[in-house]
């Protein structure tokens, strides 16, 4: 939740500034620092994951077999593709091709939506199998498996929240492009929003092998 306001105002604080020289470097520096905080937020979770996996290697392996590798792989590709459309959108803006940028950005948002859709089917199928925190089936399993599923829902859930936040930010950017606030001479907002979107992608790149590929 704080992420929304954080990143939004990050970019907003450069608004209403139509001069030629803006502190583009400063804006990017600030955004990168914010990305570090996001990275360390997830690092805490990865640390928890690493510790518990070290304590319960076999149980993590067994539980890992239950996740849907196919959904995971498709989702990885969807998110990677959305990163591509993101940079293409910035590239189009740099060249002053407004409508191309809009198309690519809309594509990015759409891919985010597809990612969440697949996530929804994945979670519902797992919940139907009785694998959710506090479920009777899960409480009968070993500690390691409870921890695996607890981490699975917490980490992919927090990631999904970030995807939603990212989509909201990108929607604002879409509006800004349409209103001309973002234009060929001033696209730093789009660029920093893009950085945020890529970070979400990077986090997923690590979540994917840790939850879907322990075969």
């Amino acid at each position: 939740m704080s992420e929304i306001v954080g990143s939004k105002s990050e970019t907003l604080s450069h608004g209403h500034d139509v001069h030629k020289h803006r502190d583009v470097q400063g804006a990017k520096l600030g955004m990168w620092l914010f990305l570090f905080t996001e990275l360390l937020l997830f690092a805490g979770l990865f640390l928890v994951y690493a510790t518990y996996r070290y304590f319960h290697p076999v149980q993590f392996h067994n539980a890992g077999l239950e996740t849907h590798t196919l959904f995971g792989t498709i989702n990885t590709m969807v998110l990677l593709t959305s990163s591509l459309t993101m940079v293409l959108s910035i590239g189009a803006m740099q060249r002053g091709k407004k409508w191309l940028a809009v198309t690519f950005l809309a594509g990015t948002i759409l891919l985010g939506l597809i990612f969440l859709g697949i996530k929804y089917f994945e979670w519902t199928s797992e919940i139907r199998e009785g694998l959710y925190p506090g479920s009777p089936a899960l409480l009968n399993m070993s500690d390691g498996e409870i921890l695996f599923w607890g981490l699975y829902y917490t980490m992919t859930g927090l990631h999904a929240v970030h995807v939603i936040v990212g989509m909201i930010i990108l929607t604002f950017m879409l509006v800004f492009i349409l209103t001309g606030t973002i234009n060929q001479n001033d696209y730093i907002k789009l660029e920093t929003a893009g950085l945020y979107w890529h970070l979400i992608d990077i986090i997923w790149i690590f979540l994917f092998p840790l939850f879907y590929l322990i075969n």
Partner: protein
Amino acid sequence: MADVAIPPNEAFANSYLKNHGKRKGILAWILSTDHKRIGILYMVSLFTFFTVGVILGVLMRLEMLVPGPAGKLFTAQEYNALFTLHGVIMIFLFVIPGIPATLGNFFLPIQIGAKDVAFPRLNLLSWYLYVTGSIIIIVSLFHNGLPDTGWTFYIPYSIRTGTDVTMAVFGVFILGFSSILTGLNFITTIHRLRAPGMGWFKMPLFVWALYATAWVQVIATPVLAITLLLIMVERIFSVGIFDPAKGGDPVLYQHLFWIYSHPAVYIMILPPMGVVSEIITTFSRRTVFGYKAIAISSLAIAFIGYLVWGHHMFVAGMSTTAQFVFSFLTFLVAVPSGIKVFNWVATMYKGSIDLKPPFLFVMAFIFLFCIGGLTGLLLGSVATDAQLHATYFVVGHFHYIIFGGGVFIFFGALHYWLPKMFGRMYSIKAANWALAIMFVGFNMLYFPMLVMGAEGMPRRYFAYLPKFETWQHISMVGSWVLVIGLIIMFANLLHGIFKGKVVGSNPWGGTTLEWTIASPPPPPENFEEIPVIVHEPYYHPEAIEVK
């Protein structure tokens, strides 16, 4: 830099304290993106919570009137809530935002010759996040009982207790983001907005300290955020990550908690260290001794401070290897702090010392901070820590560092910069008296704690063995003396702000940039034209230069 004579009446007419925009009254303050106004907003809110924290602290001491569990002022449950709230309010609402959010906001841009911070709106947003977080914490008190976990929220107690920990933790989570945003704003500001000619080694040492602090804020706070988030997740969804019954590991929680909360100690103490460097040179009328050593030791403290969190967990059930590593690193972090103290004392050597209240505060600081730091050595050694951990000794040590060190300098900084911020002077005599009373009260309050701790008095006890009665009573009376000193000091400062004698732009003979502009500073851009930096920050033209 010579005292630029700006007529006080002109300064008052054109100050940031006057409304210049179209907004009026309170809106002109709470919607202002002027870093000076945001600094004042923080100051008002911080000292409001400080007052609450002090009252809670005095009540805790009052509970120690009688030793046994019978005939107490408060029940055990109430006492447990008291120390939790005292800790949460003082740590998260007062000392962590502390000097950076208030005086840092006010003086960082001025000291580097900038017109504002890099992201002024983000700056205002951090204040709103701070207020939101604080309100959530306050609301949690009236909802489902007062939290009773201690400010560390150790699991599994924090996930089992029936009180409203979830909301309190959420409040702290929000405060964390306020702190992060302030940190990233300061780093960007220092990198991007230094005035021409101000190289890294021409920055005032206060700016160096804020820079090191800002990095700790940015890099450490997210780990606290995720830890608190996991407590909330655990309490709401019972996923098991922190529940020992489901395989969760309480020691892992402590790692995550202290990965933030130990560096947080440096968030609390680095900015005061920066202020000390400023005050000492100003009142010694000479340049600082070992500028680079002080600047670099700020970074070194921030860096090594990040590696030593495990010394809070020596008896928590860590592996022997971890005890070894953390004890070793802990001893190393003592060195840069020591270097700073030596440099400060050496700065007084062959100075021309003017014993004004800010300098007296610094002397009190060096005295109390040395006690705090040197008692820390006993806690860094695993053998003695096994005896002293979780006793009053730790409470005493901590208060010597954070209150005696950090907060005394916060007060000292107020005495130093108040004439600049408001263009008026407080009563010097009253300030000296307040400090003397506070100093006596402080030592009466906390020195007995060191003694009791060494004799085995555990902390967070609402009742205690009769053998500690005398020391407990001395400590209790000390808290009253301290409060009398605080009241005199705040009354004097407030009187100074509103009714004090008008002073010029540089009453102390300071050499950094803030003393070259009017008191109170002009809105919103600070400088009529951006200054060009030629000298090192502490160049006193009248002093004899020795190379």
